[in-house]
């Protein structure tokens, strides 16, 4: 008996089921890379066999955060940088949910960087999509944590003196167990990677290059791109941390030289998820916590019986 019959149903959802029936007018500019994330996500969901009502999409703030408005599912549009802590607690409370978090590069690698590091470390079974356009878009074009060194903006008029964040390297060092980079200009690969990330048991991080045609005009449209799995130049073992680290370093360097390397950078299928680890230590209930509040037969222990004896 479950109070959540949408979870693990036999129903088969179609791509269109993830489009709101009354579709809000998107706030994204024409040509924005964010449309590609939405499309890839809608395309991947039926492939992984999940339906809107068993999916929780938690988003941050910024243009990317609007994703939850244009994607039909349970949505939680949180605050800037905090999508991950909201999402991971939801997963712990009801592990049957498909939990996806999404936000921009400022959201994930800047203000929410601490949460990114720790959520990756804990290896929660969820997917995190970072819309990386190397700029703050919604606030109208300021330098972001991934903006290239020397990038000029209204807030860095003489050009950024900082090296950009290395999102893939950071993710690996933090402990993510699936790390990929794709680009809005590569819809087929994007959908495949989103699908793999959702299917992966553990924390799957996608650095999704999404061009901002309005505020990052001098930035490339992320073409031409190279799929590192398809190109003979890059022969590395995606399951080997050291080789993956080298490949990431290379890809991060080349992006700023104008070469877009995308694909799967790291995968660890053996590592237990956080839920599994916590269950092993006896600190996670066997049945989903969320079910208990709807279960009339559930037993609720009393502190008077369980704990008061130690105080008498």
């Amino acid at each position, binding site marked *: 008996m479950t109070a*959540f019959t*949408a979870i693990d149903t036999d129903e088969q959802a179609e791509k269109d089921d993830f489009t709101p029936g009354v579709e809000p007018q998107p706030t994204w500019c024409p040509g924005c890379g964010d449309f590609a994330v939405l499309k890839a996500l809608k395309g991947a969901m039926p492939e992984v066999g999940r339906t809107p009502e068993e999916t929780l999409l938690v988003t941050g703030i910024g243009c990317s955060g609007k994703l*939850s408005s244009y994607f039909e599912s349970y949505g939680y549009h*949180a605050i800037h940088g*905090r999508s991950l802590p909201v999402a991971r607690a939801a997963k712990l409370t009801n592990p049957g949910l498909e939990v996806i978090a999404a936000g921009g590069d400022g959201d994930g690698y800047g203000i929410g960087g601490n949460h990114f*590091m720790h959520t990756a470390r804990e290896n929660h079974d969820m997917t995190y999509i970072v819309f990386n356009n190397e700029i703050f878009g919604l606030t109208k074009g300021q330098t972001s944590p991934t903006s290239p060194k020397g990038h000029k903006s209204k807030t860095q008029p003489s050009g950024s003196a900082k090296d950009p964040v290395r999102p893939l390297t950071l993710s690996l060092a933090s402990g993510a167990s699936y790390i990929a980079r794709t680009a809005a200009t590569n819809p087929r690969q994007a959908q495949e990677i989103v699908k793999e990330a959702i299917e992966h048991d553990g924390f799957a991080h996608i650095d999704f290059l999404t061009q901002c045609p309005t505020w990052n005009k001098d930035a490339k449209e992320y073409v031409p791109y190279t799929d590192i799995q398809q190109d003979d130049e890059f022969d590395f073992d995606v399951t080997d941390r050291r080789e993956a680290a080298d490949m990431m370093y290379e890809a991060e360097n080349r992006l700023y030289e104008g070469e877009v390397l995308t694909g799967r950078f790291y995968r660890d299928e053996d590592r237990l998820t956080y839920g599994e680890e916590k269950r092993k230590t006896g600190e996670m209930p066997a049945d989903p916590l*969320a079910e208990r509040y709807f279960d009339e037969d559930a037993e609720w222990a*009393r502190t008077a019986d369980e704990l008061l004896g130690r105080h*008498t």
Partner: protein
Amino acid sequence: MTDTLMWRIAGGSGDGIDSTSQNFAKALMRAGLHIFTHRHYPSRIRGGHTYVEVRAGEQPVRSRGDGFNFLLSLGDSFARNPSEDAYYGNEELKPLTEHLDELNEGGVIVYDTGLIDEEEVAQIGLEERAEENNWHVYPVDLRELAREHGREVMRNTAGIGITAALLDIDTTYFEGLITEAMSGETQEQNLEILQKAYDRGKEFDITHDLRVPEGEHDREMALLSGSNAIAYGALDEGCRFISGYPMTPWTDVFTIMSQNLPHFGGISEQVEDEIAAAALALGASHAGAKAMSGSSGGGFALMSEPLGLAEMTETPVVLVEAMRAGPSTGMPTKPEQADLEHVLYTSQGDSCRVVFAPANVREAYDQTRKAFELAYSYNLPAIVIYDQKIQGELRTVPVDFFDREPTSGMEGVLSEEELAEAAHDASGNFMRYRHDVEDGSNPRSIPGQKGGRHLVTGNESQEVGHISESPDNRKAQMDRRMRKLSSIREELDEMDATHQSYHGPSDAEHGILVWGSQQDTVFEAVDRLNARGESVKALGVSDLMPYPETEVTAFLESVEECLVVEMNASGQFRGLTQRELGRFGPKMTSLLKYDGEPFEPGEIVDGFESSLSGGAELSGNVRLEPAAGD
């Protein structure tokens, strides 16, 4: 003649002062006495002067009292600076020297000559001071007693044995506790040391009159702290998720919950910071668990934004805030009541939250339960604000007080059957935020439920959850959310037992207003004042948002003048009362204390008399702030 024992054990942080005092308190409770404890400790791991005071009486004890009458000074075995001219003074001696100013006339001093050098004691003029104050001094080598029959760390037990001998306490109660808590050689040695020390104590020529009072309980008692009560209230109300980051003094509640939640089938998460801690609690709550988080001042500041998100998205959550002396890092282990405005108003936008300030163990349990109940039926955040005083003090409460039924299930949510009947938009989205609900509160659906999908957002939203900046919708949604507070006020006013506490004759001429942890100390002062012929009553306020307008108005109207007692420098509660009621400014004088120590009843008695006559002396580090217009 004193009717209560006020026993103080002092030593170095890490010397086992806290656990020894707990055992001492528990033994006296079992002997039939009512207990109140007060903890004082430094912000470091080992060393540094620490003490715990145990007050025990035949009648229920409400506060730590004024001063104390028995000092067991163990010296500081972790002292790093055993020299008088060190920057922080001679730390080794502090467990003796730091207490003499507060020891009452006729008091008893026991100190460990194994650690405290008798020559140095002579240098500080203990003998002369003892003579002046009629103190009775019993030097004894506790360390040697412990070494001889066990290990040096057991000198605490030796101190208990001496105390028992000097006060005529039956050692059976201590033996019982040692037997329950220890086994094998440790148990045998401690029992031996207890007995040897008792015998040694009886060899003294006992010159003091102080003895342990006699009492008898008519029902079984338990000894608990406010932290216990908050945690147990949360568990009994069905809380099964906590997320947090350590910070004194909130850590206590976090620890108790973390240690017990696995057994109750729940989840505890220690996370990277307090922003995450609060956000996790929201995520867990959104996904269908009763969840809590909490912190102290600085950590709670980091929770401001998730707190606002909870208000806007109408995600229920309970947060607790354990105040300590601020601003900034302030004094981490010292109590203060200066975070009231912080907790009421922090986060952008108009506040829409419930805030309760319990005054003692019973209120902490009851009001934590009520906080969960309201949060989860009205879908908003509720905060329990308390301080380092309530967190650490142990008090005796009848066991049957806790004989309550736990709350199962969750209010404020719809089942799938109910969702099937509920309103949806053309997209099939559940109408989560309807304007037209009378009490302002809409039930929610939980992710994974069929028929419940909708968007939740920190932006202003339409009835179905989508972002909207329409002026008409905005006003309707703001009005509706704020309406929850007036509905909650009505519900609280209709409860059988109000959260506010009254003390003293109802027709008294003068009033004292107090909130949170200082309430019971004020009540003790009220008794003394009335015994002296004054005409005083007190009102202890726990509901801070929504404010108990009717009750406080009636109280203030019924008195000529009112003293407002609180532990902060700017009279925050008096300000709140004036703001909420819009009058009574000229009636209210503040009595403020913010030196890191809670009020003693005597300071309130003196403060009251000074505020009336304008001439009487204030005692302690307190300050009177005249009424508006004075």
